[in-house]
């Protein structure tokens, strides 16, 4: 894998080499009801989706269930994808994150006990998260960019994005004022965006 395609999930490598349609082209074809195009799209996006869902939902069986719902939703709503407004992966991952977060929030809505338990053990938890992120990163770029954040920016983004915490929960877990967390989430993303060279 050369540097130019490192930041892309596996399926995109073939697309970058010009031997297969891109996820964007596939989504447009899927919108016309083509199940073969959907099979190929599935291969391109399912691993990033399942990985993200696993990270947030944790439980394997539930993660598979949520991933299935997300894939069916991609099929159902493919006609809404507009290639002019962002990549197919960005679209799919936005949907996936929301679904995964919905699942954990509905499971946790009844109690704040877990939050208190998590608060007691949060230092240990962060070490594990940081290590998992570091070992799982498939791209040097993302790892480097995360490492350039302040600790508070990084922890806040990881808790929100990878664990599906609300910013209120993040503030509690990090013993930091709400306003500060809001600001760190935003300026952390700005720094990541600039570091990754992302344009909309």
């Amino acid at each position: 894998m050369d540097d130019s395609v490192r930041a892309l999930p596996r399926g995109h490598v073939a697309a970058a080499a010009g031997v297969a349609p891109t996820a964007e082209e596939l989504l447009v074809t899927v919108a016309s009801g083509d199940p073969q195009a959907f099979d190929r799209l599935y291969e391109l996006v399912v691993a990033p989706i399942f990985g993200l869902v696993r990270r947030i939902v944790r439980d394997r069986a539930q993660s598979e269930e949520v991933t299935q719902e997300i894939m069916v939703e991609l099929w159902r709503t493919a006609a809404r994808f507009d290639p002019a407004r962002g990549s197919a992966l960005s679209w799919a991952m936005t949907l996936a994150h929301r679904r995964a977060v919905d699942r954990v929030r509905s499971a946790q809505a009844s109690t704040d006990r877990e939050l208190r338990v998590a608060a007691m053990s949060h230092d240990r938890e962060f070490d594990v998260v940081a290590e998992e992120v570091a070992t799982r990163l498939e791209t040097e770029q993302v790892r480097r960019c995360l490492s350039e954040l302040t600790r508070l920016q990084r922890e806040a983004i990881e808790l929100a994005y990878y664990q599906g915490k609300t910013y209120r929960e993040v503030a509690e877990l990090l013993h930091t004022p709400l306003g500060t967390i809001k600001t760190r989430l935003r300026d952390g993303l700005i720094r990541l965006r600039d570091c990754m060279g992302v344009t909309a």
Partner: protein
Amino acid sequence: MNADVHALTGAYVLDAIEDDERADYERHIEECAECAREVAEFRATAARLGAVAAISPPTQLHDRVRHEVARTRQDSPGRLRLVGAAADSGRRIRYRRRMWTVSAAAVVAFLAAGVSVGFAINAGHQLDITQHALSQAHASDAPISRLLAAPDVRMAGGSANGGSVTLLSSPSLHQGVLLAQNLPAQPHDRNYQAWTITPAGFRSLGLLGGGGSATLSVPDLGTGEDIGVTVEPAGGSSQPTTAPIMDFRTAG
């Protein structure tokens, strides 16, 4: 809009805000092109964070998804134009359909408050349930009173061309009521017809009149069913003859 809302962009993209704040923020980005661009950039950034966590799922998952997809009707671009024109401006990337549930107490509170209540159905488009429509229906229709009193009353709905259809349903009563509001008037020889859509086909739920407001009792209603509304010749059709102007799923 104040700087406080503006500062929520990061939390919004990371799905780290509560539903009420989400609604506020989405109103904000309607008027803030710069915020909308930042949201798109942050989403692309977050997608990179997500993609590095990639894990291949078990191969059986693909079979299960294929099976589901084979029996799942796609949203058509035509319907999306009707239903989601504003919501689909691309400044949000959200699900068009979303179910929600409310408690009977909440419904009664809305009635008592006497205000128009907007429920976000998803890609941000709004279903307005006015105190007028609900209370009018409530007073005139015993099934609605029973539904509103049921502990598991749920709402789902869709809208098109300024009109909306709301479904109140209760799984424990196996019943529902469709409330149509402000549906655009059809010619004399046309009216609205509601359907459930299942893998086995369409089942007519009945007619919703030629426009304006109407209520329709729906006995034997299951959960997780797709509901569609079409325009049909007066008297109704045995199967839909036009594309649905809206559809939504009953809360499961």
